[in-house]
């Protein structure tokens, strides 16, 4: 009975969707509505105007910088909420004896992570810093770095894992992305006359590149810290 109802609902949902999808303009046609309005302009003048050869990065950091600032605020808020839910309200159930019953990490995993760790670290920095000319960017590189921290946390002892993330400026680094956006936004206000604006003139091209790189770095560091913090907060007591 229940199963029949579920199937009925799924059919009722999928049929209108399929019908709508079948009436969309053909997939991949260059004359489709999304490709004829603003995208050509971005593609044409993105590299000169926004200072990033990767037009996706140009859209994210320059044309729609406000969006991205909201986005980094969202992920920072999510981290704050995770910490609030898991740490602040916990009724003092001691996170004392941990991992006694946990499955020991196999030698193979341990070895592979150790061998790969430096390469992953270098790759994440590359993806962050080269995001405006190659595929990549702050979020992608930050996620790779966060994944590295998670992998290392799995194979290291509690104390060593804690030493991975610096204790002292931890809060500052977790908020790195919103703070960087704010600072660069104010810098744009001073230099170019608008919040989050970048200098347009040819002579100040290098400044735009520096500002973009700083934002990418901020997003990368902030993103990595947020992901690592979320992971560690969730695994704090097992």
């Amino acid at each position, binding site marked *: 009975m229940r199963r029949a109802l579920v199937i009925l609902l*799924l059919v009722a949902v*999928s049929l209108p969707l*399929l019908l709508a999808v079948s009436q969309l303009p053909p997939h991949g046609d*260059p004359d489709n509505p999304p490709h004829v309005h603003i*995208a050509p302009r971005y593609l044409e003048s993105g590299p000169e105007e926004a200072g990033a050869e990767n037009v996706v990065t140009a*859209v*994210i950091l320059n044309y*729609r910088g406000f969006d991205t600032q909201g986005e980094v605020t969202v992920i920072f808020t999510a981290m704050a909420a995770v910490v609030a839910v898991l740490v602040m309200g916990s009724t003092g159930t001691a996170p004392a004896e941990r991992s006694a019953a946990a499955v020991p990490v196999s030698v193979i995993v341990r070895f592979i992570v150790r061998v790969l760790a430096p390469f992953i670290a270098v790759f994440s920095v590359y993806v962050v810093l080269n995001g405006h000319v*190659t595929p990549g960017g702050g*979020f992608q590189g930050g996620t790779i770095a966060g994944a590295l921290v998670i992998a290392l946390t799995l194979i290291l002892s509690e104390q060593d894992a804690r030493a991975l993330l610096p204790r002292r400026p931890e809060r500052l680094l977790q908020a790195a992305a919103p703070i960087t956006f704010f600072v660069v936004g104010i810098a744009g206000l001073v230099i170019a006359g608008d919040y989050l604006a970048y200098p347009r003139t040819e002579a100040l091209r290098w400044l735009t590149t520096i500002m973009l790189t700083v934002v990418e770095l901020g997003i990368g560091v902030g993103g990595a810290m947020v992901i690592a913090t979320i992971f560690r907060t969730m695994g704090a007591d097992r």
Partner: protein
Amino acid sequence: MIAALWQNLDYAASVALFCIGLYAIITKENLIKKFMGLNIMETAVFAFIVALGVVDGGEAPIMGPGVEAPFINPLPQALILTGIVVAVSTTALALSLVIRIWRQCGTIEADELREAE
């Protein structure tokens, strides 16, 4: 309709993915599986919007020497990058709530939780 669907197979695939996610959300009692379903639905929407930006034979929208038009529409990709980050945020929050429920109630099965009320 079938011919039109065949032409828009990418879109139809994301509809199928969407329904799989919806199925998981409705039928699974385990909260983590429900959130997996939610993630599958999100992925379906992302795939759909990215597919909207595809141009046949297009190159990645990275300018530089040696690349020429047509380029793939950069706008959906930028939009979806934002969407993915928001999806990660909601998933993290949802999972931490599940952890909290597990600590308080000792179970994350929706039906058992309903009984416990």
